[in-house]
């Protein structure tokens, strides 16, 4: 099957405008008869459900949590980008587009990214209208801050809780549509398969996680807004329940998986403290605005950080990348931290950490504050005190979180940080309309592969999730549904539904009948270790081949020795988790295959065989300037389809932040 990205013809700046002007429309009377299923209620899912409900479609929305408001978008801290140019610092749609393409190391589609930049400003307008309380200046206007990989201030934020505020905005819009009867909401429900009729997605099989019962739901179209798959690494900044299951079921039903190996390792997370660790916590990238990252110049220096003098510190990001300093993109910052730690300069008990230091920022802000208040002859203590207040207002919740987790006071001693898995740029392959290779099946937000190339810039995930849900899918879905107005709602006793439910049921029965000796958690941990060691921040052919063999063996062991307590028809979180881990194991194998196939370094994907003399990532545009769209053939068997990336508006170049 050939893939067609359906990118409209014409000038880049005109593509989306022209598309909207010519796309098919569905009249309001017909919308009432068209049913749409949305799985997932994060930024993409909630915004899509609200917007499509407003348009008059009959929407059903599903989430595995107890409320749509719990979706993991809620945990995004730092901010959301938009090309508003409120700061008059030279920002524009083109610059946001350019930064995103460059940040993604030239592995994203021009047309999609330009559209994203175009609608970015509308997102901020929409959110403010919903009552999202973004940070403001004293004049009452919106405040902005900088984020990694850019030289303008285009990031809107709400303290360190931007994702929470945006999600609650989308959630409230969704709940309004529920109240109006346009959307039906199913909480504590998990999608376990896509139902296809005549090649088109026509519904889902969902499991009520409270009763354990399987349900059949029909839809003229199905939208997967189910987030990323970072939990394949076991430890990540994702929520405990974040999983690949919905996307994976879609993949096995014919939806191609795009660039599965593109994983974002976020540079500033709280380091692992022991074997008990269940997840990792991010410290927002916004902290790199003011914090300075360093390690001791001496290897194995065990002194307290406050005893190490300025001259004995290596601010390695400022040293290596003077133009961007501590604000280099995430992939660059992560690799640099790993490089220092591997070379023996790491700090803390594990020696797998670097310092993120606020002492200089506290002093700087204290002096500014003293100046503002017209105070002369202020003691150093007073300046520090005032500086701490300023830092507290900007980053207080993050500092509190750090203190609770580590038991250390980050206002007094530098924070210890280390990279952790955070986001997956890869995902279901979609065309310009966000449709997967299964007709009528769409993927939005982190669940799709589309806009971030090989590395996502900070504050761009929230932008993309909301762009897809509020401003893209409401237009593009009409182009498909306009031809579906004659399709009547299908009864769920159709044989395709019966068959799909039987298949799902058989798999659950099989899982429960294994009655082995090892817990689901133990398999997940082992998978995570293989992935982190061999398909993590640095990858090589030998390691990836080993990983594939190890994962295949792990899969066998899982299906013969996993122990799942309890029974099927009850609230059974262990059973839910078992299904997810089984899917993660299969995905892990595909990720390693993709990483092995892509014998170049780009963005978050670093192949040790492909680096410059200075240890920077070395791209190979001649051979790998494509999206790898993997087609499921059978067990451990995939076919690679390539979507060539064409750059007509950007001169593709080596990515430098020096």
């Amino acid at each position, binding site marked *: 099957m050939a893939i067609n990205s359906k990118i409209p013809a014409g000038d880049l700046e005109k593509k989306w405008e022209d598309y909207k002007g010519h796309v098919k429309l569905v009249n309001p009377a017909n919308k009432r008869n068209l049913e749409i299923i949305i799985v997932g209620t994060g930024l993409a899912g909630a915004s899509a459900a609200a917007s499509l409900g*407003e348009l008059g479609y009959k929407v059903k929305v599903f989430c595995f*949590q107890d*409320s749509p408001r719990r979706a993991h978008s809620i945990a995004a801290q730092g901010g959301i980008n938009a090309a508003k140019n409120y700061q008059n610092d030279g920002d524009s749609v083109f610059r946001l587009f350019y930064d995103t393409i460059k940040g993604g190391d030239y592995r994203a589609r021009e047309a999609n990214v330009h559209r994203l930049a175009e609608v970015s400003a509308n997102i901020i307008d929409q959110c403010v209208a*919903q009552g999202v309380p973004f940070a403001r200046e004293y004049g009452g206007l919106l405040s902005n801050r900088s984020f990694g990989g850019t030289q303008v201030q285009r990031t809107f934020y709400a303290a360190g809780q931007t994702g929470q505020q945006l999600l609650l905005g989308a959630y409230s819009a969704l709940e309004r549509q529920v109240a109006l009867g346009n959307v039906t909401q199913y909480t504590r429900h998990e999608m376990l398969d896509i139902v296809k009729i005549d090649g088109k997605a026509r519904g889902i099989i969902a499991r009520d996680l409270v009763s354990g019962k399987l349900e059949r739901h029909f839809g003229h179209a199905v939208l997967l807004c189910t987030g990323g798959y970072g939990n394949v690494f076991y430890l990540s900044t994702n929520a405990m329940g974040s999983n690949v299951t919905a996307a994976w079921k879609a993949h096995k039903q014919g939806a191609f998986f795009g660039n599965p190996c593109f994983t974002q390792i976020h540079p500033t997370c709280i380091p692992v403290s*022991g074997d008990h660790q*269940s997840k990792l916590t991010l410290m927002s990238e916004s902290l790199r605005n003011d914090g300075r990252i360093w390690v001791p110049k001496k290897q194995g220096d065990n002194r307290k950080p406050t005893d190490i003098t300025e001259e004995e510190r290596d601010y390695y990001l400022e040293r290596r990348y003077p133009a961007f300093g501590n604000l280099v993109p995430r992939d660059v910052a992560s690799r640099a931290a790993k490089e220092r730690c591997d070379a023996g300069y790491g700090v803390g008990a594990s020696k797998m950490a670097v310092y993120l230091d606020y002492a200089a920022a506290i002093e700087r802000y204290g002096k500014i504050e003293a100046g503002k208040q017209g105070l002369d002859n202020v003691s150093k203590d007073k300046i520090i005190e005032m500086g701490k207040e300023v830092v507290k207002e900007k980053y207080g919740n993050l500092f509190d979180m750090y203190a609770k987790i580590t*038991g250390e006071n980050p206002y007094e001693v530098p924070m210890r940080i280390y990279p952790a898995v955070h986001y997956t740029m890869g995902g279901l392959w979609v065309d310009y309309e966000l449709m997967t290779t299964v007709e009528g099946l769409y993927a939005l937000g982190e669940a799709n592969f589309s806009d971030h190339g090989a590395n996502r810039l900070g504050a761009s995930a929230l932008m993309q999730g909301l762009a897809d849900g509020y401003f893209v899918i*409401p237009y593009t879905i009409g182009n498909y549904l306009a031809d579906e107005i004659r399709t009547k709602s299908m009864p769920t006793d159709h044989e395709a539904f019966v068959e799909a439910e039987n298949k799902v049921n058989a798999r659950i029965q099989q899982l429960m009948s294994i009655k082995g000796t090892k817990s689901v958690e133990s398999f997940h941990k082992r998978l995570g270790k293989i992935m982190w060691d061999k398909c993590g921040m640095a990858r090589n052919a030998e390691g990836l081949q080993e990983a594939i063999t190890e994962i295949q063996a792990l899969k066998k062991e899982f299906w013969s020795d996993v122990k799942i307590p309890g029974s099927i028809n009850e609230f059974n*979180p*262990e059973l839910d988790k078992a299904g997810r881990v089984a899917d993660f194991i299969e995905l892990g194998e595909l990720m390693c295959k993709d990483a092995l196939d892509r014998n170049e370094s780009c963005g978050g994907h670093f192949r040790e065989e492909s680096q410059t003399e200075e240890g920077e990532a070395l791209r190979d545009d001649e051979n790998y300037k494509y999206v790898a769209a993997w087609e499921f053939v059978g067990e451990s068997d995939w076919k690679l389809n390539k979507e060539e990336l064409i750059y007509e508006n950007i001169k593709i170049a080596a990515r430098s932040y020096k």
Partner: protein
Amino acid sequence: MEHTTINLTLKVWRQKNASDKGSFQTYNVKGISTEMSFLEMFDVLNEQLIAEGKDEPIAFDHDCREGICGMCSMYINGRPHGPWHGTTTCQLHMRAFKDGETVVVEPWRARAFPVIRDLVVDRRAFDRIIQAGGYISVNTGNAVDANAIPINKKDADNAFAAASCIGCGACVAACKNSSAMLFVSAKVSQLALLPQGGPERQTRVLDMVAQMDKEGFGSCTNTGACEAECPKEISLENIARLNREFTAASLASEE
């Protein structure tokens, strides 16, 4: 940070399903690192239960484990989210406990939050309260420029403080009357403080309070336990604001 390991006795509420009567069961956990979170200690216990194969693992709600999703909800030694101020269960760390201590863990207890299993309760009543009016009616695409309406920083900051509610329900669990006033007042305040929330200000507060009553939450008697136990330190001032909003709206609706 120095860390040690501790042993604990846990008395945990076990209830098979909504109709089961439920009871406390006692478990011992050993060698718990003080660097673990409270939920990681539960992970250890559950792995232990799975290995032993006698009791089923304990069901509890959790997701983000970074204090923001509002899903975790344990009532620990008589306090929602346990002993630390301004902290969710997932951010509570074992440094808070002493070696040899007995820790009692229960679900949220409120008529409007029926138990689903063990420590898991049904909080959909909160969604229905939001459905009653916890929004601004603006369809996608209707918005004016984000800077068209300046908002003074104080109002914006207060709206943000109210909006930081995570909807966990600790306020209800803490209240002797199981009142949801802190939760409702946080949303009412956020939207009343912002000019965008103006047009629906009166219907919103009336409808949300009516729904709260209908769900079976109790009355507020200004005890303040909700504020004391709220992991996000939502202020009682929001309840005062809700009362003013409610009175004004009631008077206006009688006209």
